[in-house]
């Protein structure tokens, strides 16, 4: 019935009313799919805050953060993995026995993507997109894509131990997540060496 009314409005309206009826059709049609409360206009793209992510990962018993300082050798490997000079002078991580958690960022197309990664016994246990800032490619944050990373390790050439199928139109975001996964696996080994 609603669709019938919308069609009548659009097709039967006088010529000079058609732009207005088009707008009405558009608004009515879009409301078929969602109700948009005014209060949600300020919603941001933080799907999960880093703090909440860490609390979830460590079940509330969050260890004190450790720090890995970016020396020359470490920077060299990170550049090999990401293709760029890694920003910053150190990387913070959280560790409990052989399990480490990392909050890392990498540029997708224009903006950084913030990702939480957990490595357990040198294998990737969890990868979650925490903040996504691009206009396209937001499919990469969903489990149907990120679940591919679970169980992966690092090869001797600092690549992922298995291939990842990408998402068309989101190649740069996909590449960013692949870089982050490899960086986290590499840093995990370094963090345990330091200990």
């Amino acid at each position, binding site marked *: 019935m609603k669709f019938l009314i919308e069609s009548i409005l659009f*097709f039967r309206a006088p*010529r000079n009313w*058609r*732009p207005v009826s*088009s*707008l009405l*059709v*558009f608004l009515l*049609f*879009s409301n078929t*799919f*969602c109700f*948009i409360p005014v209060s*949600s*206009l*300020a*919603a*941001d*793209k*933080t*799907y999960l805050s880093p703090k909440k992510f860490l609390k979830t990962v460590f079940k509330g018993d969050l260890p004190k953060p450790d720090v890995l300082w970016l020396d020359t050798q470490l920077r060299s490997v990170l550049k090999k993995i990401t*293709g760029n000079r890694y*920003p*910053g*002078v*150190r990387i913070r991580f959280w560790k409990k026995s052989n399990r480490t958690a990392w909050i890392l960022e990498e540029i997708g*197309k*224009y*903006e950084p993507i913030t990702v939480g990664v957990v490595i357990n016994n040198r294998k990737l246990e969890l990868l979650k997109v925490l903040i996504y*800032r691009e*206009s*396209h490619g*937001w*499919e990469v944050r*969903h*489990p*149907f*894509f990120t679940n*591919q990373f679970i169980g992966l390790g690092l090869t001797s*050439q600092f*690549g*992922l131990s*298995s*291939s*990842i*199928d*990408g*998402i*068309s*139109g*989101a*190649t740069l975001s996909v*590449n960013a997540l692949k870089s982050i996964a490899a960086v986290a696996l590499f840093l995990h080994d370094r963090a345990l060496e330091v200990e």
Partner: protein
Amino acid sequence: MGWFNVEFVEFPKIRLERIVNSMKCRLNTGDLLAPQTKRVLAGLATLLICSIPLATNAQTQKEMWQTIQKQQRQIEVLQKAQKNTDKSVEATAAAVQEGSASSGWWNKTSLGGYGEVHYNGGDTDKVDIHRFVLNVNHQFSDSVRLYSEVEIEHGLAGDGEDKPGEVEMEQAWIEFDLSDEVKARAGVFILPVGILNETHEPPTFYGVERNNVEKNIIPSTWWEAGAGLSFGGSSGFLVDLALHSGLDVPNTGSSAFKIRKGRQKVAEATAREPAVTARLKYTGTPGLELASTVQYQYDITQADEGDTRSSATLIEVHGIYTHQISPSTSLSLRALYATWDIDGSAAKALGRDEQTGWYIEPSVKFNLGDTGDLGFYLRYSADDNTAGDAIDSEVRETVVGLNYWPHKHVVLKADYSVPAPPAGTARNDMFRAGVGFQF
């Protein structure tokens, strides 16, 4: 004569030596003393000698304790200094990491773009800087942002045949995040249709030139002014809806009702007749994209009141599948079909009431490690802007070529095009080469 050898500690060595020497002197008097006396004296001497290390030991222990206490105080001072140093290092690292400069618009504005230079051989024999594009984006807040794109085509814009270029504003729209899965947009934006219409940076597709189907039928790149909504979920389905300005195709002349000629590019565009576009896209399986777009415009001639109108409906479907068969090799397949249905006797008379095209493009890509990536492809396409009549006017083309990416954002392209034009049209086989980039 007895005399005593004892081991002395070094300190106080001189004093002990004197004692020993004096004892030696005294005891060497020998016969002057009775043996018993000697034994007593020896015992006393022994006692004296043994007590000297004890006395020395006690004195050393006291000094050692003082030394230890002194060192302990020094350690405490150093520990305190170390804590202060740690705090300073922490603050320095935090400042470096986050940037000590005050925040301004430059932290929220990003620049990007792409460009490509082409050589077309065969009878065409031309080299052309086909396009250079600059994107300027700005984040107003966490949920409101600007996307803009300005493009220069063919190097030189202006009047005259020697200035074939154009300067175009392809995008200038604001995006609003309404929730995690709903976005709205308003302004000038690219329509959600086809494969290349939205994603056409040179490193993202095969072929020196964009394929004829999306160029002539979609018609890419196609942008309009209006408003839109996007809904995306964890199921992998994405819905796009848009209400926007429409095409304005000429209804006379050789280009009458040709879709590509209807693009107004929002340049003081006639806005009597809007259009609506809806797309359903699925990307819930990694490597797979399936999408379908429907667009309707009541009158694509934007006719005046009382003139004949021609409504038009576009239906487009496409699929893309890419699969990594090994860490260094991926296979990909693209296929697209698009068709216009245009009402009205005028379009029908010209055979342009139906305009259709399709293509299929398999490819393989090899990762060469630090050297880059190399891909090979084959594309077969067919498009016809006058498919509504019985005359064979379909243009078929086979293209085989390669892309080489020395860097993920840079591509070198080469291909060979073998068109199969309709009967009576000259065939122009050509070798093409190009360089493209994005940043």
